[in-house]
Protein backbone atom coordinates (compact mmCIF):
# COMPACT_ATOMS: atom_id res chain seq x y z
CA UNK A 1 0.00 0.00 0.00
CA UNK A 2 1.46 3.39 -0.93
CA UNK A 3 1.74 5.89 1.95
CA UNK A 4 -0.11 8.52 -0.05
CA UNK A 5 -2.66 7.89 -2.79
CA UNK A 6 -4.28 10.63 -4.84
CA UNK A 7 -6.80 9.44 -7.38
CA UNK A 8 -8.37 11.90 -9.83
CA UNK A 9 -8.64 14.55 -7.11
CA UNK A 10 -10.86 17.54 -7.84
CA UNK A 11 -11.14 20.49 -5.43
CA UNK A 12 -13.22 23.58 -6.18
CA UNK A 13 -13.54 26.96 -4.54
CA UNK A 14 -16.99 27.98 -5.63
CA UNK A 15 -16.90 27.95 -9.41
CA UNK A 16 -13.11 27.94 -9.49
CA UNK A 17 -11.48 24.57 -10.07
CA UNK A 18 -8.24 24.64 -8.05
CA UNK A 19 -7.34 20.97 -8.52
CA UNK A 20 -8.61 19.31 -11.66
CA UNK A 21 -8.09 15.56 -11.69
CA UNK A 22 -4.69 15.12 -10.07
CA UNK A 23 -3.45 11.55 -9.51
CA UNK A 24 -0.22 10.27 -7.99
CA UNK A 25 1.11 7.86 -5.37
CA UNK A 26 4.02 8.09 -2.95
CA UNK A 27 5.68 5.32 -0.98
CA UNK A 28 7.34 5.16 2.40
CA UNK A 29 10.90 6.44 2.21
CA UNK A 30 10.17 8.40 -0.92
CA UNK A 31 10.48 12.17 -1.38
CA UNK A 32 7.98 13.47 -3.90
CA UNK A 33 7.88 17.09 -4.98
CA UNK A 34 4.89 18.91 -6.39
CA UNK A 35 6.37 21.56 -8.62
CA UNK A 36 4.47 24.34 -10.30
CA UNK A 37 3.88 28.07 -10.53
CA UNK A 38 1.91 29.93 -7.87
CA UNK A 39 -1.76 29.04 -8.03
CA UNK A 40 -1.13 25.73 -9.78
CA UNK A 41 -3.03 23.79 -7.10
CA UNK A 42 -0.06 22.41 -5.12
CA UNK A 43 -1.09 23.76 -1.74
CA UNK A 44 -4.73 22.81 -2.27
CA UNK A 45 -3.66 19.25 -3.08
CA UNK A 46 -1.47 19.05 0.01
CA UNK A 47 -4.14 20.60 2.25
CA UNK A 48 -6.62 18.00 1.06
CA UNK A 49 -4.13 15.30 2.05
CA UNK A 50 -3.73 16.98 5.44
CA UNK A 51 -7.50 16.89 5.97
CA UNK A 52 -8.06 20.67 5.80
CA UNK A 53 -10.22 20.48 2.69
CA UNK A 54 -12.61 17.95 1.34
CA UNK A 55 -12.26 16.40 -2.12
CA UNK A 56 -15.10 17.46 -4.41
CA UNK A 57 -14.44 14.42 -6.56
CA UNK A 58 -11.88 11.63 -6.68
CA UNK A 59 -10.26 10.14 -3.60
CA UNK A 60 -7.24 10.68 -1.37
CA UNK A 61 -5.78 8.24 1.17
CA UNK A 62 -2.94 8.79 3.59
CA UNK A 63 -1.63 5.67 5.32
CA UNK A 64 -4.84 4.01 4.20
CA UNK A 65 -7.01 6.60 5.98
CA UNK A 66 -9.37 9.21 4.60
CA UNK A 67 -7.82 12.51 5.74
CA UNK A 68 -11.23 14.18 6.08
CA UNK A 69 -13.30 11.57 7.92
CA UNK A 70 -10.38 9.92 9.80
CA UNK A 71 -8.74 13.27 10.54
CA UNK A 72 -8.30 12.71 14.29
CA UNK A 73 -6.69 9.32 13.81
CA UNK A 74 -4.43 10.63 11.08
CA UNK A 75 -3.11 13.71 12.91
CA UNK A 76 -1.01 11.49 15.21
CA UNK A 77 0.81 10.01 12.23
CA UNK A 78 1.47 12.96 9.94
CA UNK A 79 3.69 16.01 10.20
CA UNK A 80 2.65 19.30 8.67
CA UNK A 81 4.60 22.38 7.65
CA UNK A 82 2.26 25.13 6.49
CA UNK A 83 3.32 27.51 3.79
CA UNK A 84 3.58 30.24 6.42
CA UNK A 85 2.81 31.01 10.03
CA UNK A 86 1.16 28.55 12.35
CA UNK A 87 3.20 29.36 15.44
CA UNK A 88 2.42 31.65 18.41
CA UNK A 89 4.42 34.84 17.68
CA UNK A 90 5.52 35.30 21.31
CA UNK A 91 6.62 31.71 21.80
CA UNK A 92 10.26 30.73 21.45
CA UNK A 93 11.53 27.60 19.74
CA UNK A 94 12.21 25.74 22.95
CA UNK A 95 8.73 26.29 24.38
CA UNK A 96 7.00 25.65 21.05
CA UNK A 97 8.73 22.31 20.49
CA UNK A 98 8.11 21.23 24.10
CA UNK A 99 4.44 22.21 23.85
CA UNK A 100 3.91 20.36 20.57
CA UNK A 101 5.73 17.32 22.01
CA UNK A 102 2.97 16.99 24.64
CA UNK A 103 0.39 16.51 21.87
CA UNK A 104 1.94 13.19 20.78
CA UNK A 105 2.19 9.79 22.48
CA UNK A 106 5.83 9.13 21.69
CA UNK A 107 7.46 12.41 20.62
CA UNK A 108 11.03 13.05 19.58
CA UNK A 109 13.31 14.62 22.13
CA UNK A 110 12.73 18.41 21.88
CA UNK A 111 16.37 19.33 22.52
CA UNK A 112 17.62 16.90 19.89
CA UNK A 113 15.16 18.35 17.42
CA UNK A 114 16.25 21.93 18.05
CA UNK A 115 19.84 20.89 17.39
CA UNK A 116 18.80 18.98 14.27
CA UNK A 117 17.26 22.09 12.66
CA UNK A 118 20.17 24.18 13.97
CA UNK A 119 18.13 26.56 16.09
CA UNK A 120 20.11 26.15 19.31
CA UNK A 121 21.61 29.67 19.18
CA UNK A 122 18.15 31.25 18.92
CA UNK A 123 16.20 28.68 20.95
CA UNK A 124 14.97 31.35 23.40
CA UNK A 125 14.13 34.03 20.82
CA UNK A 126 10.40 34.62 20.26
CA UNK A 127 9.13 33.33 16.93
CA UNK A 128 8.25 36.82 15.70
CA UNK A 129 11.87 37.94 16.07
CA UNK A 130 13.37 35.00 14.15
CA UNK A 131 14.48 35.41 10.53
CA UNK A 132 12.30 33.93 7.81
CA UNK A 133 14.60 30.94 7.50
CA UNK A 134 14.69 30.33 11.25
CA UNK A 135 10.89 30.52 11.40
CA UNK A 136 10.66 27.96 8.62
CA UNK A 137 13.11 25.64 10.39
CA UNK A 138 11.12 25.89 13.63
CA UNK A 139 7.99 24.99 11.66
CA UNK A 140 9.93 22.04 10.25
CA UNK A 141 10.90 20.91 13.76
CA UNK A 142 7.24 21.07 14.81
CA UNK A 143 6.31 18.97 11.78
CA UNK A 144 8.73 16.26 12.93
CA UNK A 145 8.18 16.22 16.68
CA UNK A 146 5.48 13.53 16.52
CA UNK A 147 7.65 11.06 14.56
CA UNK A 148 5.35 11.20 11.52
CA UNK A 149 5.12 8.45 8.91
CA UNK A 150 4.18 11.02 6.29
CA UNK A 151 5.48 14.60 6.28
CA UNK A 152 3.81 17.34 4.24
CA UNK A 153 6.18 20.23 3.69
CA UNK A 154 4.60 23.15 1.86
CA UNK A 155 7.40 25.32 0.46
CA UNK A 156 9.99 24.22 3.07
CA UNK A 157 12.75 26.37 1.60
CA UNK A 158 10.79 29.52 0.77
CA UNK A 159 12.66 32.49 2.19
CA UNK A 160 15.32 30.24 3.71
CA UNK A 161 18.96 31.34 3.57
CA UNK A 162 21.64 29.03 2.12
CA UNK A 163 22.63 27.62 5.53
CA UNK A 164 18.98 26.92 6.26
CA UNK A 165 18.57 25.18 2.92
CA UNK A 166 21.37 22.82 3.80
CA UNK A 167 19.68 22.10 7.13
CA UNK A 168 16.37 21.41 5.37
CA UNK A 169 18.14 19.14 2.86
CA UNK A 170 19.81 17.18 5.68
CA UNK A 171 16.50 16.81 7.50
CA UNK A 172 14.70 15.58 4.38
CA UNK A 173 17.49 13.11 3.68
CA UNK A 174 17.18 11.85 7.25
CA UNK A 175 13.42 11.39 6.85
CA UNK A 176 13.95 9.42 3.65
CA UNK A 177 16.39 7.04 5.32
CA UNK A 178 13.97 6.62 8.25
CA UNK A 179 11.34 5.43 5.80
CA UNK A 180 9.17 8.53 6.08
CA UNK A 181 7.18 9.50 3.03
CA UNK A 182 7.78 13.19 2.28
CA UNK A 183 5.47 15.25 0.09
CA UNK A 184 6.84 18.70 -0.56
CA UNK A 185 5.84 21.58 -2.75
CA UNK A 186 8.07 24.12 -4.36
CA UNK A 187 8.31 26.49 -7.23
CA UNK A 188 12.10 26.45 -7.09
CA UNK A 189 13.60 24.03 -9.57
CA UNK A 190 17.06 23.89 -8.07
CA UNK A 191 15.71 22.94 -4.68
CA UNK A 192 13.46 20.23 -6.10
CA UNK A 193 16.35 18.83 -8.07
CA UNK A 194 18.33 18.48 -4.85
CA UNK A 195 15.57 17.23 -2.54
CA UNK A 196 13.19 15.01 -4.43
CA UNK A 197 13.30 11.48 -5.76
CA UNK A 198 10.31 12.11 -7.95
CA UNK A 199 8.83 15.27 -9.40
CA UNK A 200 5.22 15.96 -10.30
CA UNK A 201 4.78 19.10 -12.33
CA UNK A 202 1.38 20.70 -11.76
CA UNK A 203 -0.16 23.59 -13.64
CA UNK A 204 -3.71 24.93 -13.67
CA UNK A 205 -4.73 22.12 -11.32
CA UNK A 206 -3.49 19.33 -13.58
CA UNK A 207 -0.46 17.09 -13.67
CA UNK A 208 1.47 18.05 -16.79
CA UNK A 209 4.43 15.74 -16.21
CA UNK A 210 5.51 13.22 -13.62
CA UNK A 211 8.40 10.90 -13.06
CA UNK A 212 11.93 10.57 -11.77
CA UNK A 213 13.94 13.57 -12.75
CA UNK A 214 15.74 11.85 -15.64
CA UNK A 215 12.45 10.50 -16.93
CA UNK A 216 10.76 13.88 -16.97
CA UNK A 217 13.54 15.43 -18.96
CA UNK A 218 13.26 12.50 -21.35
CA UNK A 219 15.79 11.34 -23.91
CA UNK A 220 14.87 13.99 -26.38
CA UNK A 221 17.96 15.74 -27.56
CA UNK A 222 17.92 19.28 -28.77
CA UNK A 223 20.00 22.25 -29.77
CA UNK A 224 19.41 25.73 -28.42
CA UNK A 225 21.04 28.90 -29.60
CA UNK A 226 20.66 32.63 -29.28
CA UNK A 227 21.00 35.12 -32.09
CA UNK A 228 19.29 38.31 -33.11
CA UNK A 229 15.49 38.17 -32.97
CA UNK A 230 13.37 37.58 -36.06
CA UNK A 231 15.57 35.17 -38.01
CA UNK A 232 13.98 33.59 -41.04
CA UNK A 233 13.22 30.35 -39.26
CA UNK A 234 11.34 28.85 -42.20
CA UNK A 235 14.42 29.11 -44.34
CA UNK A 236 16.67 27.84 -41.55
CA UNK A 237 14.37 24.87 -40.90
CA UNK A 238 14.57 23.88 -44.53
CA UNK A 239 18.35 24.19 -44.52
CA UNK A 240 18.78 22.12 -41.34
CA UNK A 241 16.05 19.63 -42.15
CA UNK A 242 14.61 20.10 -38.64
CA UNK A 243 11.95 22.29 -37.02
CA UNK A 244 13.31 25.56 -35.64
CA UNK A 245 11.21 27.63 -33.26
CA UNK A 246 11.86 31.03 -31.75
CA UNK A 247 10.84 30.34 -28.16
CA UNK A 248 11.46 33.86 -26.98
CA UNK A 249 12.71 36.77 -29.05
CA UNK A 250 16.27 35.87 -29.97
CA UNK A 251 16.19 32.39 -28.41
CA UNK A 252 15.86 29.46 -30.77
CA UNK A 253 15.23 25.75 -30.37
CA UNK A 254 16.16 23.11 -32.94
CA UNK A 255 14.24 19.95 -32.06
CA UNK A 256 16.57 17.28 -33.34
CA UNK A 257 19.64 15.45 -32.01
CA UNK A 258 22.49 17.94 -32.20
CA UNK A 259 24.95 15.96 -34.32
CA UNK A 260 28.13 17.85 -35.30
CA UNK A 261 26.98 18.19 -38.92
CA UNK A 262 23.88 20.04 -37.74
CA UNK A 263 25.91 22.43 -35.64
CA UNK A 264 28.25 23.04 -38.55
CA UNK A 265 25.33 23.69 -40.89
CA UNK A 266 23.84 26.20 -38.45
CA UNK A 267 27.19 27.98 -38.16
CA UNK A 268 27.54 28.20 -41.92
CA UNK A 269 23.99 29.54 -42.32
CA UNK A 270 24.70 32.26 -39.78
CA UNK A 271 28.10 33.01 -41.32
CA UNK A 272 26.55 33.50 -44.77
CA UNK A 273 24.34 36.19 -43.28
CA UNK A 274 27.08 37.59 -41.05
CA UNK A 275 24.92 37.05 -37.94
CA UNK A 276 26.65 36.74 -34.56
CA UNK A 277 25.88 33.67 -32.44
CA UNK A 278 25.00 34.61 -28.86
CA UNK A 279 24.79 31.25 -27.16
CA UNK A 280 24.87 27.59 -28.14
CA UNK A 281 23.80 24.64 -26.04
CA UNK A 282 23.36 21.04 -27.09
CA UNK A 283 22.09 17.98 -25.27
CA UNK A 284 19.32 16.85 -22.97
CA UNK A 285 16.72 19.36 -21.86
CA UNK A 286 17.22 20.93 -18.46
CA UNK A 287 14.47 20.42 -15.87
CA UNK A 288 14.02 24.16 -15.94
CA UNK A 289 13.34 24.11 -19.66
CA UNK A 290 10.85 21.29 -19.24
CA UNK A 291 9.14 23.20 -16.46
CA UNK A 292 8.96 26.44 -18.37
CA UNK A 293 7.73 24.71 -21.50
CA UNK A 294 5.02 22.75 -19.65
CA UNK A 295 3.77 25.51 -17.41
CA UNK A 296 4.22 28.38 -19.82
CA UNK A 297 5.83 30.42 -17.10
CA UNK A 298 8.19 31.96 -19.60
CA UNK A 299 7.84 35.62 -20.43
CA UNK A 300 6.70 35.17 -24.00
CA UNK A 301 4.22 32.69 -25.38
CA UNK A 302 6.33 30.06 -27.16
CA UNK A 303 5.34 29.23 -30.73
CA UNK A 304 5.12 25.59 -29.76
CA UNK A 305 2.22 26.39 -27.43
CA UNK A 306 0.30 28.28 -30.07
CA UNK A 307 -2.27 25.47 -30.18
CA UNK A 308 -3.40 26.06 -26.58
CA UNK A 309 -2.67 29.76 -26.55
CA UNK A 310 -6.33 30.55 -26.99
CA UNK A 311 -7.36 28.87 -23.75
CA UNK A 312 -4.49 30.19 -21.70
CA UNK A 313 -5.64 33.81 -21.54
CA UNK A 314 -8.79 33.29 -19.39
CA UNK A 315 -6.96 30.76 -17.24
CA UNK A 316 -4.41 33.35 -16.35
CA UNK A 317 -7.28 35.33 -14.90
CA UNK A 318 -8.25 32.35 -12.80
CA UNK A 319 -4.80 32.03 -11.48
CA UNK A 320 -4.89 35.56 -10.12
CA UNK A 321 -8.23 34.89 -8.52
CA UNK A 322 -6.75 31.88 -6.82
CA UNK A 323 -3.78 33.82 -5.53
CA UNK A 324 -6.10 36.29 -3.82
CA UNK A 325 -7.76 33.57 -1.76
Amino acid at each position, binding site marked *: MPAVEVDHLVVRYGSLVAVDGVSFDADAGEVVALLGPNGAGKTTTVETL*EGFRRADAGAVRVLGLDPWSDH*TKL*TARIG*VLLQRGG*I*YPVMNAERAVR*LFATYYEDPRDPDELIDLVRLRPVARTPYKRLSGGEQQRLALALALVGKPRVAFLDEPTAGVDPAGRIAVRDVVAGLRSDGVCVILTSHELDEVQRLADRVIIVDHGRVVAAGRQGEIQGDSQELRFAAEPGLAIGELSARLGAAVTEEQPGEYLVSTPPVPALVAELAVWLAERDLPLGDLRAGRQRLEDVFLRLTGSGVAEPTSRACDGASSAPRRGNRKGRARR
Partner: protein
Amino acid sequence: MNLRALRAQVAAETRMTLERGETLLVTLGIPIVLLVFFTLVPVLPTGTHHRVDFLAPGVLALAVMSTAMVSLGIATAFERSYGVLKRLGATPLGRPVLLTAKIVSVMVVEIIQVALLVGVALALGWRPHPAAGLAVIAVLLATIAFAGIGLAMAGALRAEVTLAVANGVYVILLLIGGVLFPLHELGGLASFARLLPTAALSDALHLTLGAGSSAPAQAWIVLALWAVAAPTVAAFSFKWE
Protein backbone atom coordinates in the same frame (compact mmCIF):
# COMPACT_ATOMS: atom_id res chain seq x y z
CA MET B 1 -8.58 13.37 26.42
CA ASN B 2 -4.82 13.80 26.54
CA LEU B 3 -4.35 15.31 30.02
CA ARG B 4 -0.66 16.00 29.53
CA ALA B 5 -1.47 18.05 26.44
CA LEU B 6 -4.34 19.81 28.23
CA ARG B 7 -2.10 20.79 31.15
CA ALA B 8 0.65 22.03 28.85
CA GLN B 9 -1.82 23.96 26.71
CA VAL B 10 -3.43 25.62 29.76
CA ALA B 11 0.01 26.61 31.05
CA ALA B 12 1.03 28.00 27.65
CA GLU B 13 -2.23 29.93 27.14
CA THR B 14 -2.16 31.37 30.67
CA ARG B 15 1.48 32.39 30.41
CA MET B 16 0.91 34.14 27.09
CA THR B 17 -2.11 35.97 28.54
CA LEU B 18 -0.23 37.14 31.61
CA GLU B 19 2.76 38.27 29.52
CA ARG B 20 0.65 40.47 27.23
CA GLY B 21 0.88 44.00 28.58
CA GLU B 22 -2.18 45.38 26.80
CA THR B 23 -4.25 42.50 28.16
CA LEU B 24 -3.14 43.14 31.73
CA LEU B 25 -4.18 46.76 31.30
CA VAL B 26 -7.74 45.74 30.41
CA THR B 27 -8.07 42.80 32.80
CA LEU B 28 -6.34 44.22 35.90
CA GLY B 29 -5.21 47.81 35.38
CA ILE B 30 -8.52 49.42 34.42
CA PRO B 31 -10.68 47.53 36.99
CA ILE B 32 -8.31 48.35 39.86
CA VAL B 33 -8.00 52.01 38.86
CA LEU B 34 -11.79 52.38 38.53
CA LEU B 35 -12.36 50.68 41.89
CA VAL B 36 -9.82 52.76 43.79
CA PHE B 37 -10.53 56.09 42.06
CA PHE B 38 -14.32 56.08 42.34
CA THR B 39 -14.22 54.72 45.89
CA LEU B 40 -11.98 57.57 47.00
CA VAL B 41 -13.50 60.33 44.84
CA PRO B 42 -17.25 60.80 45.42
CA VAL B 43 -18.38 61.79 41.93
CA LEU B 44 -20.58 58.84 41.03
CA PRO B 45 -24.17 58.28 42.11
CA THR B 46 -23.43 54.87 43.60
CA GLY B 47 -26.58 55.01 45.70
CA THR B 48 -25.14 53.58 48.90
CA HIS B 49 -23.43 55.13 51.84
CA HIS B 50 -20.30 53.05 51.30
CA ARG B 51 -19.33 53.54 47.69
CA VAL B 52 -17.07 50.49 47.68
CA ASP B 53 -20.06 48.30 48.51
CA PHE B 54 -21.54 49.22 45.15
CA LEU B 55 -18.29 49.46 43.16
CA ALA B 56 -16.66 46.17 44.19
CA PRO B 57 -19.31 43.80 42.72
CA GLY B 58 -19.60 45.94 39.56
CA VAL B 59 -15.86 45.97 39.00
CA LEU B 60 -15.74 42.19 39.50
CA ALA B 61 -18.33 41.87 36.73
CA LEU B 62 -16.15 44.11 34.55
CA ALA B 63 -13.12 41.93 35.29
CA VAL B 64 -14.96 38.78 34.19
CA MET B 65 -16.03 40.48 30.96
CA SER B 66 -12.51 41.76 30.26
CA THR B 67 -10.92 38.32 30.49
CA ALA B 68 -13.61 36.04 29.06
CA MET B 69 -14.67 38.31 26.21
CA VAL B 70 -12.01 40.92 25.41
CA SER B 71 -8.79 39.05 26.17
CA LEU B 72 -9.95 35.65 24.92
CA GLY B 73 -11.61 37.09 21.82
CA ILE B 74 -8.67 39.21 20.72
CA ALA B 75 -6.06 36.53 21.44
CA THR B 76 -8.04 33.88 19.55
CA ALA B 77 -8.64 36.21 16.62
CA PHE B 78 -4.90 36.83 16.23
CA GLU B 79 -4.13 33.12 16.60
CA ARG B 80 -6.55 32.52 13.77
CA SER B 81 -4.95 35.16 11.56
CA TYR B 82 -1.44 33.82 12.30
CA GLY B 83 -2.52 30.34 11.21
CA VAL B 84 -1.96 28.96 14.72
CA LEU B 85 -5.46 27.50 14.95
CA LYS B 86 -5.06 25.90 11.54
CA ARG B 87 -1.71 24.39 12.49
CA LEU B 88 -3.07 23.04 15.77
CA GLY B 89 -5.86 21.44 13.74
CA ALA B 90 -3.23 19.23 12.13
CA THR B 91 -2.00 17.92 15.50
CA PRO B 92 -3.63 15.31 17.75
CA LEU B 93 -4.43 18.07 20.29
CA GLY B 94 -7.95 18.34 18.91
CA ARG B 95 -10.42 21.19 19.06
CA PRO B 96 -12.25 20.04 22.22
CA VAL B 97 -8.99 20.00 24.20
CA LEU B 98 -7.91 23.35 22.76
CA LEU B 99 -11.26 24.91 23.69
CA THR B 100 -11.16 23.36 27.17
CA ALA B 101 -7.66 24.71 27.65
CA LYS B 102 -8.79 28.20 26.68
CA ILE B 103 -11.73 28.14 29.11
CA VAL B 104 -9.61 26.77 31.96
CA SER B 105 -6.99 29.40 31.24
CA VAL B 106 -9.67 32.13 31.40
CA MET B 107 -10.75 30.79 34.79
CA VAL B 108 -7.19 30.77 36.09
CA VAL B 109 -6.83 34.43 35.11
CA GLU B 110 -10.21 35.21 36.70
CA ILE B 111 -9.08 33.67 39.99
CA ILE B 112 -6.04 35.96 39.93
CA GLN B 113 -8.26 38.96 39.13
CA VAL B 114 -10.76 38.13 41.85
CA ALA B 115 -8.01 37.64 44.42
CA LEU B 116 -6.44 41.02 43.60
CA LEU B 117 -9.69 42.96 43.28
CA VAL B 118 -11.22 41.49 46.43
CA GLY B 119 -7.98 42.27 48.27
CA VAL B 120 -8.05 45.89 47.12
CA ALA B 121 -11.78 46.22 47.87
CA LEU B 122 -11.37 44.79 51.37
CA ALA B 123 -8.56 47.26 51.97
CA LEU B 124 -10.93 50.02 50.88
CA GLY B 125 -13.45 48.88 53.47
CA TRP B 126 -15.66 46.51 51.48
CA ARG B 127 -17.56 44.02 53.63
CA PRO B 128 -19.17 41.42 51.33
CA HIS B 129 -21.81 38.98 52.52
CA PRO B 130 -19.99 35.74 53.40
CA ALA B 131 -22.45 33.39 51.66
CA ALA B 132 -21.21 33.92 48.11
CA GLY B 133 -21.97 30.55 46.51
CA LEU B 134 -24.54 32.01 44.13
CA ALA B 135 -22.03 34.67 43.06
CA VAL B 136 -19.68 31.91 41.89
CA ILE B 137 -22.45 30.36 39.81
CA ALA B 138 -23.26 33.75 38.29
CA VAL B 139 -19.58 34.25 37.40
CA LEU B 140 -19.39 30.80 35.78
CA LEU B 141 -22.48 31.44 33.66
CA ALA B 142 -21.20 34.86 32.67
CA THR B 143 -17.80 33.43 31.79
CA ILE B 144 -19.40 30.99 29.37
CA ALA B 145 -21.58 33.75 27.90
CA PHE B 146 -18.70 36.23 27.47
CA ALA B 147 -16.36 33.54 26.12
CA GLY B 148 -19.04 32.69 23.56
CA ILE B 149 -19.29 36.34 22.51
CA GLY B 150 -15.50 36.71 22.31
CA LEU B 151 -15.08 33.51 20.28
CA ALA B 152 -17.98 34.41 17.98
CA MET B 153 -16.13 37.63 17.11
CA ALA B 154 -12.77 35.88 16.82
CA GLY B 155 -14.09 33.20 14.51
CA ALA B 156 -15.89 35.47 12.09
CA LEU B 157 -14.10 38.83 11.99
CA ARG B 158 -10.58 39.83 10.99
CA ALA B 159 -8.19 40.11 13.92
CA GLU B 160 -7.95 43.91 13.72
CA VAL B 161 -11.74 44.21 13.57
CA THR B 162 -12.12 41.89 16.56
CA LEU B 163 -9.63 44.06 18.46
CA ALA B 164 -11.67 47.18 17.76
CA VAL B 165 -15.11 45.65 18.29
CA ALA B 166 -14.17 43.85 21.51
CA ASN B 167 -12.73 47.02 23.03
CA GLY B 168 -15.71 49.06 21.85
CA VAL B 169 -18.20 46.61 23.33
CA TYR B 170 -16.14 46.60 26.54
CA VAL B 171 -16.50 50.37 26.91
CA ILE B 172 -20.23 50.36 26.12
CA LEU B 173 -20.97 47.52 28.53
CA LEU B 174 -18.81 49.24 31.13
CA LEU B 175 -21.10 52.28 30.83
CA ILE B 176 -24.46 50.51 30.71
CA GLY B 177 -23.57 47.38 32.68
CA GLY B 178 -24.24 48.56 36.22
CA VAL B 179 -20.49 48.63 36.84
CA LEU B 180 -19.90 52.20 38.01
CA PHE B 181 -23.43 53.42 38.80
CA PRO B 182 -26.80 51.75 39.35
CA LEU B 183 -28.85 50.73 36.33
CA HIS B 184 -31.84 52.85 37.38
CA GLU B 185 -29.71 55.94 36.73
CA LEU B 186 -29.86 55.03 33.03
CA GLY B 187 -33.56 55.91 32.78
CA GLY B 188 -35.24 54.35 29.75
CA LEU B 189 -32.02 52.62 28.70
CA ALA B 190 -32.11 50.50 31.86
CA SER B 191 -34.62 47.94 30.60
CA PHE B 192 -32.51 47.38 27.47
CA ALA B 193 -29.31 47.22 29.51
CA ARG B 194 -30.81 44.53 31.72
CA LEU B 195 -31.01 42.23 28.68
CA LEU B 196 -27.22 42.33 28.31
CA PRO B 197 -24.95 39.94 30.19
CA THR B 198 -22.87 42.57 31.97
CA ALA B 199 -25.86 44.17 33.69
CA ALA B 200 -27.27 40.76 34.53
CA LEU B 201 -23.96 39.73 36.10
CA SER B 202 -23.50 42.95 38.06
CA ASP B 203 -27.11 42.70 39.26
CA ALA B 204 -26.48 39.17 40.43
CA LEU B 205 -23.21 40.10 42.13
CA HIS B 206 -24.66 43.18 43.84
CA LEU B 207 -27.40 41.14 45.44
CA THR B 208 -25.48 37.96 46.26
CA LEU B 209 -22.37 39.73 47.58
CA GLY B 210 -24.25 42.69 49.04
CA ALA B 211 -27.27 41.17 50.69
CA GLY B 212 -26.55 37.47 50.51
CA SER B 213 -29.83 37.06 48.65
CA SER B 214 -30.33 35.70 45.19
CA ALA B 215 -30.56 37.94 42.16
CA PRO B 216 -33.88 38.67 40.45
CA ALA B 217 -35.09 35.89 38.20
CA GLN B 218 -34.60 38.08 35.15
CA ALA B 219 -30.84 38.35 35.75
CA TRP B 220 -30.50 34.55 35.96
CA ILE B 221 -32.59 34.04 32.83
CA VAL B 222 -30.58 36.63 30.88
CA LEU B 223 -27.27 35.08 31.97
CA ALA B 224 -28.45 31.56 31.14
CA LEU B 225 -29.76 32.57 27.72
CA TRP B 226 -26.50 34.30 26.81
CA ALA B 227 -24.55 31.31 28.11
CA VAL B 228 -26.42 29.06 25.69
CA ALA B 229 -26.85 31.40 22.73
CA ALA B 230 -23.38 32.95 22.44
CA PRO B 231 -21.35 29.70 22.39
CA THR B 232 -23.90 28.20 19.97
CA VAL B 233 -23.47 31.09 17.55
CA ALA B 234 -19.69 30.83 17.95
CA ALA B 235 -19.72 27.09 17.27
CA PHE B 236 -21.69 27.48 14.06
CA SER B 237 -20.00 30.58 12.68
CA PHE B 238 -16.39 29.86 13.66
CA LYS B 239 -13.99 29.78 10.71
CA TRP B 240 -10.70 28.15 11.68
CA GLU B 241 -8.61 29.83 8.96
